[in-house]
C-alpha cells in the first residue's frame, strides 16, 4: 500500500482519462483518409501526447505486425491497454473505427441506391485502380528488405504463386509456407552463402539507385 502510493508520488505519470484516449483515437480515425492510419497514431500518441516514446511505439508495431489483424486496430489495442488496461483498449478501438463506420455505412446506403448509376461505377473503378498503385508502393516499401534477399524473395514468390495462380486456400498457405519459413529462420540456422549473396545484391542495388523510396 505504502509502496504503491510512494511510487505514485515519486512521479508515475497521472492516469490518462479514458475520454482523452477516446478523443485522440477518434481524431486519428476521422482524419486518416486513404489509409496510413499508423502514421497518424504515431503523430498523436508519440509526438503530441507523449504517451509512449518512439521505441515503445515500434515495439507495439512489431507485435501488431506479427499478429493477425489490421495494424492500426492492433496498435490501438496495445496503446489503449498500456495506458488504461482493457477499458483503455476498448475506447481506443471504438474511437478509431467509429468515424469510418458512420461514413462507410452512409456511403453504402448511397451506393445501394445508385447501383445502376454509370458515373458512380466509373468513379469507383478509378478509385480501385488508384488503390492498386497505392498498394504496390506500400508493399514495396514494407518489403524493401525482403525483396533483395534471395531466401525471402523465394518465400514471397512461393506465397504469391500459391495464392494468386494456384488458388491454394489461405490457411494451407499459412500452415505450409508459414511453418517452412519459420523453420528456415529457426534459432541457430545459418545462411552464410545466401547472406553473402544478399549483401552483394544490396550493394549493387544501392549503387545503382534503382529505387529511392521516401517516407
Amino acid at each position, binding site marked *: 500500500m505504502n509502496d504503491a502510493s510512494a511510487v505514485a508520488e515519486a512521479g508515475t505519470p497521472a492516469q490518462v482519462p479514458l475520454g482523452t484516449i477516446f478523443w485522440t483515437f477518434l481524431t486519428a480515425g476521422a482524419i486518416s483518409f486513404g489509409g496510413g492510419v499508423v502514421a497518424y497514431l504515431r503523430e498523436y500518441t508519440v509526438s503530441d501526447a507523449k504517451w509512449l516514446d518512439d521505441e515503445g511505439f515500434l515495439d507495439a508495431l512489431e507485435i501488431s505486425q506479427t499478429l493477425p489483424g489490421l495494424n492500426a486496430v492492433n496498435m490501438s*489495442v496495445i496503446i489503449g491497454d498500456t495506458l488504461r488496461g482493457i477499458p483503455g483498449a476498448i475506447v481506443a478501438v471504438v474511437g478509431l473505427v467509429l468515424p469510418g463506420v458512420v461514413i462507410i455505412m452512409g456511403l453504402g446506403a448511397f451506393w445501394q441506391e445508385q447501383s445502376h448509376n454509370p458515373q458512380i461505377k466509373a468513379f469507383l473503378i478509378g478509385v480501385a485502380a488508384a488503390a492498386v498503385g497505392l498498394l504496390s508502393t506500400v508493399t514495396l516499401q514494407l518489403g524493401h528488405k525482403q525483396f533483395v534477399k534471395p531466401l525471402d524473395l523465394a518465400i514471397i514468390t512461393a*506465397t504469391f504463386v500459391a495464392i494468386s495462380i494456384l488458388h491454394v486456400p489461405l490457411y494451407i498457405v499459412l500452415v505450409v*509456407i508459414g511453418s517452412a519459413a519459420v523453420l528456415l529462420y529457426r534459432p541457430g540456422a545459418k545462411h552464410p552463402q545466401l547472406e553473402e549473396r544478399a549483401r552483394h545484391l544490396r550493394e549493387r542495388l544501392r549503387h545503382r539507385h534503382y529505387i529511392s523510396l521516401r517516407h
Partner: protein
Amino acid sequence: MAKLFNLAWVFMLLAILAVGGGTAVLPEMEHLTVDHFQWITRGEFRDIYSLGQVAPGPNMLMVLLIGQKMAGAMGALVVGLAFFLPDCILTLVANRLWVHFKDSPWRAAVQHGMAPVAIGLMLAGTYAIARLSIFNLTSLLIATTIFVLLLWRHINPALLVLAGGLTYLLLPHVVHLFPH
C-alpha cells in the same frame, strides 16, 4: 439466421487468417464471398473495396458493407464484430504475454519467417484488386501514374484516390472534346 451464422464464421476465419493485415486476406475474402457463397458479385466486391478507400480510418471497414448487403444493419454488426473482435482479443492477450516471449529466439524466427509470407500475401491482395480494376488503358494509366508518383515523393493517398476516381470518370469526356 443461417445467413448471419455463415457471415459470422466466414469473417471470424478471415480475421484469424489476416496475417499481414487486411490486404493479405483480400483474395480469400473475394473467393469466399463472391465464388463460394455468392453473397455479392465480383463488381460489387470491387465497388465495396473502393468505398472502403474513400472512407476514413482502416480501409477494411469495407467488410461492414458485405454484411449490410446481406442482412442490413444486423449483418453489418455481425460482420464487424466477427472481423475485428478476435484479433483485438488476441492482441490484448499477446501484449500482456509479450514480456515472456520477447527475448525467445523463436520470436525472432517467427518474425523473420512470417515477414516475407506477409509481403507475398500483400502482393496477392494487390493482384486481386488489379484484376478487378485494370482492364483498359485508362485504369492502367491511373495505377502506374500513382505508383511512380509515390515512389518519387510522398503525397496524401486520399488525394490520389480521389484523383484516380475523377480521372476514370472524366477522362473519356475530355478525350472526346478533341476531335481526331
